[in-house]
Structures are given as structure tokens and as C-alpha cells.
């Protein structure tokens, strides 16, 4: 039987599972030994089993191509990414800290604007941001929280430092894939879960529901709904999945109506039923044609009136995206110090702001080394990866930057860490990022681990599923509990459901 002959990480990169000499990192030994015990054929079989499971479970995302919407099977790689529980606890504290500061900032922007007056963030940067919504001024949502669900992208550089790459505060997606990835793993590698202390991930839908309930006006059984743009949205699978998991109704804009009493109702076969909390998965622009885009058919006329009156909670709150802007991102460490009087636990990637003349000059001189991103795009669109770009592409980008400096930031090209990934029957290093989902309502919660995305193409740094990315299961492993009998077991760890 031909045996799979080991794994060699690329030089110059940090690998998540093995160190430079090829020795498994803490918590990874068991997995790597297990993978080694499999033959090439067995690896291929498991890979096939994973694909078949994904098809059978109907896990899809939608891509728009050739004028048609196609449901694609979710690309999944079965080698998990592993994080030690101790490291995870630090990350978790850092994520809570960051979201707490971001929410304090958003609340400040729409109310007192203290941080702007004190110059923590330049006023013009905030007030001219595409995602600043004057219509939200003077509103105080429950608990002072605007961004209830935050998808924070983390990447690890070559020295092992974990950086925050961006905060997604508008309508972050991907959490359903994190949950489904674990189900797939349990089906195809049940033996791994017997012996490892892999912390479960299933708590998320319940935590999301708790978070949403904590926003409801004072009613005994709040009606929670998930608002989707509809079946042709690329994340529709997730919308329907989360609604199902929470036992919430999945609605479209046309299902909702704002009454003369300025409460929100949904049309049911029993007549109108009041809605208390809307977990919306459509952008601000489309929420309410009375206030935002008048041509929107996805939203609900009058929704903003109901929200301003506190008759309905919207998560994330309209206007929360103002802190999602990549120029604001550069100031988050300062915001943490300003609002919380704490030192940031998780560092930012150093960021040049093209709106600043000195930074701009540096960026234009060093385009070949930098990654340039538009200030408020998501999904990996419209960015320039300097080292991989042609001279033509770079000069085009230089023109874009000069024409609209406010719209661009630049960062050094990080040597993003890798994780073994099955490519043509062999395990090869591929770049990964990590998106934990952080919840803030009355209290804080975070997914255990998060969604690990992997760039399946060799050398590629783009992990977005719309652009050839795949994903992995993410394990937070309790190595202290691995120490053997007698080790501390607080009841929250262990492999099974």
C-alpha cells in the first residue's frame, strides 16, 4: 500500500500545524499521526466522502455566472486548522475588547461625537464615509450596541503574530459554513473526535438567538425574524440555515409592513403579526426606500421610522457600517485606548492611509510591495496585490489612488500563514485566514474558533469563496486536558456534541 509521505511547509511562512522543523505544534500531534497512518487511497476516499456529504447535505453557495445563478457545492478541505485553547482565550478577550470599543465609537458617532471633537479619528474621515448614515443620528439602540454580529478577519504573519485584518460589521456571512464544516468532519472522521479534546461549536445559533432576544422591546415572547434579499443572494443558504436553527421566520422585505402605529408586522395567513427583532441580511442601502435607496424593492417602507421609535430592533443597526470602513480601521487601536482606557490585545496590520499626503507618497512609491484596498468594499473585490500585479495594473491603481485618495488604504503584504491542504492527493501548504463571529447584545459571545478560509490555488492569498477559496473546520483544542488523567476538566471540553 502506497503511503502518504509527509508534509513540508513552505519556507518563510508560519504553518499552523507544524513548526519549521516539521514537528507538530502543540495540539496537532494526534491529527498529524492519524493522517500519516492513512494511505494515499484512504486520503482520496475521505476526500470523496467529504464531497459526497456536502452534496447530500445540500451545503451550497450561489455564484452569478453566464447570466445565471448557480448553486455550487461548498468547497471544503478536510484537514482542520488547529488553535490551542490558551491562545484562543487571548484571542477571544481581544475580540470582545475590539467590538466593545467599536460599538462605543459607533454610538458616539451618531450621538455626542466626542471622539471626533477630540481628534481620535479625523472628523472628515467619518462624516464623509460612504457608510456614515446621517439618518441614524440621535438614536440610542438597546445597550448602546449597534454592531451585534461582527465577523473579524484574523491572519497570522511569518513570526506567528496574529493580526486583525478587518472588522466586518455590515452583514458578515460564513458562520453557517463553520457549523456545517464541523458536521461534515464528524461524519467522515468520527475516530478523530474520540481522542481529541476538540471544543464544540454548536452553541452559536442559540447564542445568536439570545443576543437578538436581548434587543427586543419589553414583550414576553419576542418575534424574531431573519430578513433575506431572497433565494438569489449568494448567502441565501446561510439565511435559511440560521433561521431554521434559531426557529425564526425567514422573511423577505415584501413580507413585512409598517403599520400606522409605526410597528412592524409580517403578513401571515392569520393576518398581520408583530415583529420585534429583525436580523437583517441586506445592506443599509436597501433597508427602507423612504430613507435610503428609493428604488429598493428588497426593504420595507417605514422601517427606519419604526426603528427610530424603538418599536423594532434591527441587527446590525443601520449605520453600524461606519466602523467597517478601512480608514476607520486604522484608528481602532486608538479607539480602544480612548473609550476603554485599555491597551489593544490584538494588533492591527500597519496601515497607510492614502488620504494622508505623506502616507500617499509612500504608497505610490512602494506599490510593488503593498496590498492596496478600497476603503469600503468586501469580498476581496477591487484590491491590488502589489507583488503579484503587473506594472500596468500598478500604474492603473496609482491613477485610482490619486483620483480618490480617501477611498484607499495600503498595507504591507503579509506572509500569511499556511495549513496543510489536500491538493491532487498530496498535502500541500495553502494560505489560510480565520473569521470568528463575535456577538454583542446584553452580553458577549464568540464562536469557538470560527470559519477558516483557505486559498486553494497555489500561492494565492485570496480566500473568498466567490474567488476560488475553500474552507476548513477549525479546532480549538484543549492541550491542558490532553495532559492525561487528572487534568482539569471544566465540563466545557470534549469531542462530541
Amino acid at each position, binding site marked *: 500500500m502506497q503511503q502518504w509521505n509527509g508534509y513540508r511547509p513552505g519556507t518563510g511562512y508560519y504553518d499552523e500545524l507544524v513548526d519549521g522543523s516539521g514537528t507538530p505544534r502543540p495540539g496537532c500531534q494526534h491529527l498529524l499521526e492519524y493522517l500519516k497512518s492513512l494511505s494515499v487511497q484512504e486520503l482520496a476516499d475521505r476526500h470523496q466522502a467529504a464531497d459526497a456529504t456536502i452534496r447530500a447535505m*445540500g451545503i451550497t453557495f450561489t455564484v452569478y455566472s453566464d447570466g445565471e445563478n448557480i448553486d455550487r457545492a461548498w468547497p471544503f478541505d478536510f484537514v482542520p486548522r488547529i488553535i490551542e485553547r490558551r491562545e484562543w482565550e487571548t484571542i477571544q478577550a481581544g475580540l470582545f475588547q475590539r467590538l466593545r470599543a467599536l460599538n462605543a465609537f459607533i454610538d458616539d458617532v451618531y450621538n455626542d461625537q466626542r471622539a471626533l471633537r477630540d481628534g481620535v479619528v479625523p472628523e472628515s474621515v467619518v462624516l464623509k464615509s460612504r457608510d456614515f448614515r446621517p439618518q441614524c443620528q440621535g438614536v440610542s439602540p438597546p445597550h448602546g450596541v449597534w454592531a451585534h454580529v461582527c465577523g473579524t478577519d484574523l491572519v497570522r504573519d511569518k513570526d506567528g503574530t496574529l493580526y486583525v485584518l478587518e472588522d466586518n460589521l455590515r452583514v458578515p456571512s460564513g458562520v453557517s459554513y463553520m457549523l456545517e464544516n464541523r458536521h461534515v468532519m464528524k461524519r467522515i472522521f468520527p475516530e478523530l473526535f474520540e481522542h481529541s479534546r476538540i471544543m464544540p461549536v454548536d452553541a452559536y445559533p442559540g447564542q445568536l438567538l439570545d443576543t437578538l432576544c436581548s434587543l427586543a422591546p419589553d414583550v414576553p415572547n419576542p418575534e424574531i425574524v431573519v430578513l433575506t434579499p431572497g*433565494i438569489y443572494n449568494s448567502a441565501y443558504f446561510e439565511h435559511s440555515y440560521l433561521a431554521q436553527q434559531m426557529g425564526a421566520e425567514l*422573511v423577505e422585505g415584501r*413580507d413585512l*409592513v409598517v403599520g400606522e402605529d409605526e410597528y412592524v408586522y409580517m*403578513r401571515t395567513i392569520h*393576518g*398581520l403579526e408583530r415583529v420585534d427583532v429583525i436580523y437583517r441580511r441586506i445592506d443599509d442601502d436597501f433597508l427602507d426606500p423612504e430613507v435610503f435607496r428609493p428604488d429598493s424593492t428588497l426593504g420595507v417602507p417605514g422601517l427606519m421610522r419604526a426603528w427610530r421609535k424603538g418599536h423594532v430592533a434591527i441587527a446590525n443597526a443601520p449605520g453600524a457600517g461606519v466602523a467597517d470602513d478601512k480608514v476607520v480601521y486604522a484608528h481602532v487601536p486608538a479607539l480602544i485606548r480612548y473609550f476603554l482606557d485599555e491597551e489593544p490585545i490584538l494588533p492591527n496590520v500597519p496601515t497607510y492611509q492614502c488620504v494622508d499626503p505623506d502616507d500617499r507618497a509612500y504608497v505610490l512609491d512602494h506599490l510593488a510591495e503593498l496590498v492596496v484596498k478600497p476603503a469600503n468594499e468586501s469580498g476581496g473585490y477591487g484590491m491590488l496585490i502589489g507583488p503579484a500585479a503587473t506594472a500596468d495594473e500598478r500604474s492603473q491603481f496609482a491613477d485610482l489612488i490619486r483620483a480618490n485618495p480617501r477611498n484607499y488604504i495600503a498595507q504591507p503584504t503579509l506572509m500569511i500563514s499556511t495549513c496543510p491542504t489536500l491538493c491532487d492527493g498530496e498535502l500541500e501548504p495553502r494560505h489560510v485566514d480565520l473569521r470568528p463571529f463575535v456577538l454583542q447584545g446584553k452580553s458577549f459571545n464568540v464562536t469557538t474558533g470560527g470559519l477558516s478560509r483557505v486559498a486553494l490555488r497555489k500561492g494565492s492569498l485570496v480566500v473568498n469563496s466567490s474567488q476560488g477559496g475553500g474552507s476548513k473546520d477549525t479546532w480549538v483544542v484543549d492541550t491542558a486536558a490532553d495532559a492525561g488523567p487528572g487534568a482539569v476538566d471544566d465540563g466545557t471540553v470534549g469531542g462530541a456534541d
Partner: protein
Amino acid sequence: MLSRLAENIYWLARYLERTEDTARLLLASAQIQMDLPSGMPMSWHSLLEILGASEPYRARHGSENERAVMRFLISDPAYSGSIAASVRSARENARVTRDQLPREAWEAINGLHYLLQEQAPNAIASRWRRNDLLAAIAAQCQRIQGVLHGSVSRGPRYQFIALGRYLERADMTTRILDVRYASLFPMDGGGNDSYYSSVCWISVLRSLSAYEMYRQDLHGLVRGRDVVHYLLQGERFPRAVGFALARIRQCLEGLPNHQQPAARLEALQAVLATASLVDLSPDAMHEFIDGLQQGFAALHGDVVQTYFRFTP
């Protein structure tokens, strides 16, 4: 239950029923053609008339020959009443209600879509392939109905499925009778005519899968007036209008705020039960059936107003 989903489920059921009924009708028409004496040409026109397709057909085609009519009614994507268009609409309605239905139902509806896509292009021209395809379509529809019947819990979801199914079915049964009655009149005369008249009435029964049951329920020569009574006023056979209306009544009773549609239905049932349909002239029969069909349309309107598109 959201009004939008209820509406999608209702239409899903209507389109599925329309698909099955159309397939059965075309199949039965092909059968009878083989039994007709050579001097008595098959009227392709009557098929178009039953399905309300004469106008759209004329707008796109010239002569009414077998192949063109069949292609139009089975696979023309541009004609909204074709089997292909009904399947497409059924699938679109199923797609948005996937989470509301058993997974098997979605898979079976997809199966119907692929059956048509893969086989229709080569099946139209050849009579036996076409008949195979029509039979397979009817069978796949039955499979879907079986899944819905066997695996959807009895609540509003199921009531809207049944409501759509029986309203569509009642409509189709009256359409078939309307056209066939006119062409088979005078009924049950003497000589050869009466023999062929009987053959044709058997075909009417066959197009509704009613022949065997009719034979079990009634005896003797198949006569027009008995068939009319059996298919309109009968409450035993599931494709009879009387049966369908009784089922619709049960559905409405399982739904909230049903006063208005229920009142409309009751009136319709009363008209049907008390009508004397023996030896009506074709005109009188047409007028009676027209009245029924207007009643179905009004009932549909009541359902839409009450459950789907009410104004708050």
C-alpha cells in the same frame, strides 16, 4: 405561516396538478386516435380548445397537425400553458419553499424537470416515445403527490397544497367535459354513432383515469349522461368535481378566517348538487360549466384576498 410561502405552496400544487392533468389528457387523446374510423379525423383543435390554447397557438402556428400541436402543448417554453412551462413554474415555487417541504419533494420535482429537459427534445416526433414520456411525466407527478401526501404534516402547509390541487383539478375536469360534450352531442343515439360515442366517452374517462372506477361503480354501456353525472356531481371518484369541492371544503375548515371563501364554496356546491344535467343541449351544458368555472375563479380570488394579498 407567511402569506408569501402559502401562496408559493398553493401555486406549486396547482402547477403540479396542471402538469399531470395535461399529460393525461394528451395521452388519452393519442389513444383514442387509434380507435377512430378512418373517415373520422382526430381533431387536434379540440385539445387546444380544452387547454384554452387555441388563440396563442394560432398566433404562432398555421395548420393544426399532430406534431406541431404536441410540441406546442408539451415543450414550447414560450407558451405559458405548456407542460414545460408548468414544470418550470412548479419548480420555481418549490425552490423558494424548499425549507417548508420534505427534501424528497424537492428532489422529485427536480427529477420531473430533468425528465422533461432530457427527453422532450427527442420524444415529440415519435408517437410511441412521446406516449412513454407523457406516461413518465404523469408517473413522476404521482410520485411527488405521494411524497407530499405521505410526508407533509397536516397543518396550513398541507391545506394549501390540497387547496391548489383540487381547485386545479376541478377546473381541468370541467374543461374536458365542456369540449367533449359539445363534440359528442347528440349523445347515445342509435347505430354506429352510438358505438363510437361510447368509445369516445370511454376516452373521456381514460383521460381522467376514471374508466376502471367508473366500471366498478356503474354497469352497462358507457353512456354520456352517466359519465357527465359521474364526473361532475359524483363525490366518490377523486377527479370528479363534486369530490374536489368536498375536499376544498375540508381544507378551508382547517384554515383561519375562512368565512368568505367557505360561503362561496357552499353556494357552488349547492348549484352543482341541485342541477339537472340530463340531456342538456350543448349550449346549456356550456353555460352551466361556464358558471362553475367562474365560481372556481371567484373562489381562487377569495383565497388570494383572504390569505395572500390582503390589504391591512
